[in-house]
């Protein structure tokens, strides 16, 4: 088998990436602009020995892929804002029970039903903080159809390596755009580490990650969303066990920020530096093409955990310009890691930033003194 070239939309590419990564169970509920992922999976999964099921809602979709994951499969669902909100409780359950799953959010304009057919990046903080309690997650953000494919594969590997839900935080633009892509004949698979005999099901290894006690393999594990000890048994009234568990689960991701980080750094010597992820990256790249060697660019393929050390690559930076299709969600995170002035370039409504709009932000950035300045387009 050789690599295959095709011309696909982002959502279909995402489904193909999932299949290439070995995803064999998909549970979902239709919602614009994510539905093509489910439709493609419905068509393709039965042909490769997998199972597709349309659930009664997104609570059930999230629950079903967690159940499927414990049965040993790589599992995925895809949704958009309203469905993502419904998934929040079970996302927390997946983090606390350390269940590898992949959730695709093809973002649309919110809040509420908002703009079903328009692109947005408004769920970036919900993805990081939306469920209750303290936890960490991993989130990826593709900016092309090829990346929809590649990062979906990567999402599965990260989910299994870190035993955590992994989010593919894309948007309507990338989901519905058609581009030429290469479908790989084989992709790298990093499998989850199975629980060893004699190992306790919730005792961490040197990476802070316990072995996975796949159901039906004779491990006889008990998995609960209650605070649990290393045996997996409820231990809800011990402050010590609770704190140790929560901290360990946060650290198994946060301590590996640099290993997880996936960024592009362009023109690190520039003074004015764009930071972007997802669809706005495309406009930034266009601007950089038109004005070579003028601006720096930090493109984030992984947004969470935030790759803060990559900010240090821009030694001469006088301002970070951050175009987002929200009111500045990742800009807030950047602010926590730097004293360099930030120029926030929010755009709502669904249209991408134009190069002219970014140039307007550049003009502001040239003279900026305040820590945070918002550009009104």
């Amino acid at each position, binding site marked *: 088998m050789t690599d295959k070239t095709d011309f696909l939309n982002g959502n279909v590419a995402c489904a193909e990436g999932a299949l290439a990564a070995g995803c064999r*169970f998909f549970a979902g509920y239709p919602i614009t602009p994510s539905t093509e992922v489910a439709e493609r999976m419905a068509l393709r999964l039965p042909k490769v020995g997998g*199972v597709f099921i349309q659930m009664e809602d997104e*609570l059930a979709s999230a629950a079903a892929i*967690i*159940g499927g994951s414990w*049965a040993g499969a790589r599992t995925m669902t895809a949704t958009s804002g309203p469905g993502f909100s419904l998934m929040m409780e079970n996302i927390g359950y997946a983090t606390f029970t350390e269940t590898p799953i992949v959730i695709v959010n093809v973002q649309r304009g919110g809040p509420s039903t908002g703009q079903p057919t328009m692109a947005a990046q408004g769920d970036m903080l919900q993805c990081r903080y939306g469920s209750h309690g303290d936890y960490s997650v991993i989130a990826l953000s593709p900016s092309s159809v090829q990346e929809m494919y590649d990062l979906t594969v990567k999402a599965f590997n990260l989910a299994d390596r870190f035993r955590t839900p992994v989010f593919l935080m894309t948007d309507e633009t990338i989901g519905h755009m058609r581009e030429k892509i290469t479908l790989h004949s084989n992709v790298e698979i990093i499998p989850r580490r199975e629980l060893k005999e004699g190992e306790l099901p919730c005792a961490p290894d040197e990476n802070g990650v316990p072995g996975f006690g796949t159901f039906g393999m004779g491990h006889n594990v008990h998995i609960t*969303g209650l605070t649990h000890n290393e045996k997996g048994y409820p231990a809800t009234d011990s402050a010590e066990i609770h704190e140790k568990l929560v901290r360990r689960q946060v650290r198994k991701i946060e301590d590996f920020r640099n290993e997880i980080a996936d960024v592009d750094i362009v023109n690190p010597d520039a003074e004015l530096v764009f930071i972007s992820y997802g669809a706005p990256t495309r406009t930034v790249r266009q601007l950089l093409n038109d004005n070579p060697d003028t601006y720096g660019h930090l493109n984030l393929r992984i947004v969470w955990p935030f790759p803060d050390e990559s900010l240090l690559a821009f030694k001469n930076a006088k301002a970070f310009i951050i175009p987002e299709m929200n009111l500045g969600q990742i800009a807030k995170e950047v602010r926590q890691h730097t004293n360099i002035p930030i120029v926030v370039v929010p755009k709502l409504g669904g249209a991408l930033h134009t190069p002219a709009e970014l140039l307007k932000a550049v003009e502001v950035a040239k003279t900026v003194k305040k820590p945070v300045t918002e550009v009104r387009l």
Partner: protein
Amino acid sequence: MNLEDWYRQDRLPHIYCAGCGNGTILNCTLRAVEELDYKKEETTFISGIGCSSRAAGYTSSDSLHTTHGRALAFATGLKLVKPRQHVIVFTGDGDCSAIGGNHFIHACRRNIDITVICMNNNIYGMTGGQGSPCTPYGAISTTTPYGMQEQPFDLCKVAEAAGANYVARWTSFHVKELTEAIRVGLETPGLSFIEVMTQCPTSFGSKNKMRQVTQMLDMFRDNAVLKAKADRDAAKGILPSPEKFVVGQFVRRNNPPLGVEAAK
């Protein structure tokens, strides 16, 4: 394997209050599983949230204690990925019919090959005795201090109408019949729903003139009407008195199930 091997011994005694019927239902379930000679690695217990749902934690094979109301959705995913697994879901009246009502209906409609054991104590036990969709009309709970003003669900009728292949109701008093029903349910492909009327002496009995556990058992014994008798009465036009409820097998049918390994 003998019966004792099906209990997770290092977690006993369990957290249930003295006289809570959930322990009895656990006994009957594990006895049925033992009678069928299931293997541990082929048997999975899944539950939601509530006192009833804690039962999954006292079984010795793989068990998944999930979120409130969602056990059937988790179970659906697990069963579809591993159809060889015998999947048994423990749920409560609130878990199954309030927050999880939609999943319940759809699991029955899909007729997924899962056995659901609903411990119906007519109350939210774990949270201290609030009214549930199964609290009888007029009964006292902390959120119905003047008596429940809504009609309760008949869970068996819901399951039957929604498409479950096997539906039965017994009580925590009828241990032999219950064990047999669970056994038949486990052997019937498709969704098997077994509702067990059970006592929550702490939050229901104490407020509803049944301070002693044994009074609740007497009530189950005296008010349970066998299905055959209820059918005869109905044919004669005799209306059932309101405190009575019907026990027995309501349906056993052979509609196509979901999640059963295709015969090769």
